């Protein structure tokens, strides 16, 4: 029985090694950053274009991080294809997220257009709850524990932002402050992880004659 537990740990160690390079943390930091900057750019660019510019930049950030993974990370840690248990778990995760995000989108539209008389915080609270659930579900299925922490940061940012706006007069619903702090934390974690990762996995040791002897 103890061997079963140990093999599960081995599998988890293999899978979670994919998150040890800090690149996902950096991507999440850019998501936070978009929420921090969108309200600031809104007066000059307008609501639509400020959101379009910022959220539209995510695919480019994603592409840049993918290139870093391809040319910096993979040569250092190698390539792995996960087993059927993990693949099934990832399919289950995608299905759960699809259902949950569809439900959240419908709820969001109902709250935005169906209940305009509700106070501001009544709109922010369900959003925070949904974000917290989404990050927690992802953290659980992906065994990526830092996602719980980012979920809390993301959930608190609009609520604390509203509070700052109402009671301290911080402009733009306080988003630049709260999401800006969240983005800073995420990017510091990501950079620390990435620098530590590159230091721990030097590239020079990869050229070994035995690799050629074995298979290549």
């Amino acid at each position: 029985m103890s061997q079963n537990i140990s093999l599960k740990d081995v599998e988890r160690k293999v899978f979670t090694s994919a998150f040890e390079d800090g690149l996902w943390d950096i991507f999440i930091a850019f998501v936070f950053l978009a929420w921090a900057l969108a309200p600031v750019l809104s007066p000059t660019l307008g609501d639509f274009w400020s959101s379009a510019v910022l959220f539209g930049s995510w695919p480019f950030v994603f592409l840049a991080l993918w290139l870093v993974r391809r040319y910096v990370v993979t040569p250092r840690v190698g390539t792995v294809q996960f087993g059927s248990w993990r693949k099934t778990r990832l399919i289950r995760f995608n299905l759960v997220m699809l259902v949950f995000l569809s439900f959240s989108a419908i709820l969001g539209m109902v709250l935005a257009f169906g209940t305009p008389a509700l106070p501001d915080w009544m709109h922010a609270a369900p959003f925070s709850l949904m974000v917290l659930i989404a990050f927690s579900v992802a953290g659980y299925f992906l065994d990526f524990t830092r996602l719980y922490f980012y979920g809390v940061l993301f959930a608190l940012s609009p609520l604390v932002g509203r509070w700052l706006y109402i009671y301290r007069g911080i402009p733009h619903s306080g988003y630049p402050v709260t999401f800006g702090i969240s983005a800073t934390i995420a990017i510091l974690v990501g950079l620390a992880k990435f620098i530590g990762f590159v230091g721990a996995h030097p590239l020079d040791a990869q050229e070994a004659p035995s690799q050629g002897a074995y298979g290549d």
Partner: protein
Amino acid sequence: MTERQIEQAEIGVLADIDQVIHAPTRLTVLAYLFVIESADFVFLKNMTGLTWGNLSSHLSKLEDAGYVATEKGFKGKKPHTMIRLTDRGRTAFREYKQKMLQVLDDLPD
């Protein structure tokens, strides 16, 4: 059954343990390959903490026993080899696990 016969039967189970798998290093390599579909040399080296030579030597022994197989391909222009557990290797690992559990379960506290 006499005490001697019981003793011999117990030793028989131990003698039956697959010596190819039983070596700690190969057991570690097989444990990693058991929980994934396939991996390349660099990945296994990182996970096990073995040196190139050591890993290569143990993989050769596992390949000779028919427990692992290699799939050669290219990554860009560079040759790239993925290593996976064969069906035979998977079965052997399961049997090894069962036998070790059996032996260890019979030990008094």
